[in-house]
């Protein structure tokens, strides 16, 4: 296909991409730690300079394990801060330390509603914040749009957690990922990512990723209660 030189120049800009190919990101992405995912993300990793909206079907599917390799890289290798705004539950230090996050550069902020969005905006202003994780279940479209504008001006990696119900709403975030469990009986340790929006078109089929899990799924102890001796000793001590 012949294109005029002026058009070719426009097309080579990083903020212009053609609908049928993956966009080139202005900033190289942060490797997610999962090669299959990196291959599908514009810029070859989690993109900086834009919101990454994550929509997990529910808590506990592995949505944090998905981010931990990138966060560990930002925290330990890049020596930047990781800021959590309004996490749904208290982060548990031993697990975060084990995942490779430098706790000396982790900041946790409890806030609700407008305060949470304000805290996000301040974190994006600050120098030295490498990643921002925010849980904004109530954020409306205008809040998201403002955050996206701030994100475009910063180099911070921003993960925004929103409830799965928000999938149907439109969002200014350039990358939106639905997180669910892979629905295969024998392969239940995997997580299924639905790239519902990205620069370069949505991905039709869910992307299945093997996350680092506390134990391999094959260890499943199906059925009966664990060890009878444990149960006995517990009831014995309770009686004592």
């Amino acid at each position: 296909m012949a294109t005029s030189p002026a058009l070719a120049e426009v097309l080579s800009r990083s903020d212009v991409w053609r609908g049928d190919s993956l966009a080139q990101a202005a900033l190289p992405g942060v490797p997610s730690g999962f090669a299959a995912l990196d291959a599908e993300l514009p810029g070859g990793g989690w993109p900086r300079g834009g919101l990454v909206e994550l929509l997990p079907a529910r808590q506990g599917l592995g949505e944090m394990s998905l981010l931990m390799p990138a966060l560990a890289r930002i925290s330990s290798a890049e020596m930047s801060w990781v800021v959590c705004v309004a996490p749904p539950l208290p982060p548990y230090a031993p697990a975060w330390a084990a995942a490779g996050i430098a706790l000396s550069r982790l900041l946790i902020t409890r806030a609700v509603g407008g305060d949470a969005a304000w805290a996000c905006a301040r974190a994006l202003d600050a120098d030295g914040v490498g990643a921002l994780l925010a849980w904004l279940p109530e954020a409306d479209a205008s809040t998201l749009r403002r955050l996206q504008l701030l994100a475009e001006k910063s180099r911070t990696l921003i993960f925004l957690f929103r409830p799965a119900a928000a999938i149907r709403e439109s969002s200014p975030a350039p990358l939106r990922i639905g997180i669910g469990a892979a629905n295969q009986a024998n392969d239940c340790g995997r997580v299924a990512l639905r790239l519902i929006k990205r620069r370069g078109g949505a991905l039709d089929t869910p992307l299945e990723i093997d996350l680092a899990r506390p134990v391999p799924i094959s260890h499943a102890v199906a059925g009966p209660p664990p060890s009878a001796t444990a149960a006995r000793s517990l009831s014995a001590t309770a009686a004592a």
Partner: protein
Amino acid sequence: MRLADAWALLPELSVQERDLARELRHLESLACWAGSFTSEVLLVPPDALLLEVQGSIRLFGGIEMLLARILDGLAAQGYATNAALAPTPRAALWLAAAGASGKAGEGRGCAGVYGTRIPRCLQATDLRDALALLPLDVLELEAAQRRRLAGFGARCVGDLLRLPRSGLARRLGVEFVSTLAQALGEMPDPRERYRFPDTFRESLELPARVEDAARLLFAAQRLVHVLSGWLAARSSGIVRCELLLEHERGSVTPLELAFAAATRDPERIVRVLRERLERLLLRAPVASLVLVAAAPEPLPGREGGFFGEVAASEGVSLLVERLRARLGEVNVHAIATCPEHRPELASVPVLPGSGSGITVPGPRPCWLLPQPQPLVEIAGRPQRNGPLNLLAGPERIESGWWDAGEENAAGEVRRDYFVAFSRQREWLWIFRDADGWFLHGLFA
């Protein structure tokens, strides 16, 4: 003019008695403020302040920039000033006095922003010419001396400088001649410099009572700049200071400001103050403000980055301050691991930046529930929307006999922990104790 004459001319004249003590307090407050520019500040009561700025010229990017900052700062505080620049203190005072009366001689310095408005003399060699044009009334002479001078036809300082000194000494006194020599820099002019107070307490009476907290910020900024000057002169910073909002009838609302690291940056202090004031509901109108700071910490001047950059950690400590000012100190924290077997005590909130982690053998969840959540047991298996699959365990945790039965303590625990996998594909951390099954964490 007598007061009676003044009233006769202008009956609606309102008369205030001059309060020299208050003037002196204002002068001292200005001296503190001027500490931002130099630590060598001299008070010349009732109305003059001398700043030794030779050492500060380079730091502030040249004499023009320095002058502009000093004069802008004074104007922002509502002071009308007459400034002058000279190599000796006395010459500076005289040039300033001449500037006030509009009879300043043409300075020889370069013209800048404040160009012609400020009489200046930058070189000691130009001093003689600069002073020569000054009228004699800037010299603060006694009446007898003034009469005598008029008698021999001297009209400006230049006329005096042309006369032989020994004759001047005989006619006007040795003291006058040495004053002249000091102004010219021929004789030393020792002066005691202002001693900055050990603790800072600066008050500001508001011109009108203020009922809206947000409007206090503007007035408080002025105090903050004085504080910043005081800190700069002492090469120190504060991590804590207090703004007292004084109401009528003696009641006071204290407002404590805390900083993540010692600072004396007025913008940073004002930013924290703004967050606090925006959230404040006033009980009563405010009549005056008092800014109190004790215990400053040593804070050496910051060296500029090689390429004008700001250290990253400084950016984050600013962030921490702003978040803490608005959201409260307990809501902005870091986490650290604590060597403790009981899981709920192994993770503790700590000050931002002081988090540290040791890893624990055995799987630990990313989120820990604040309170274990009971799970139903059916046919010996814990349930959460269906039976749970136990993937690993048991991990026996048995500890804490020492604070059993104490209030607000975790107490003694005897638990078997398991990693469980639910029908909804959730990874859970559950335990069983004598009371049954409980959900304690989520491996998200």
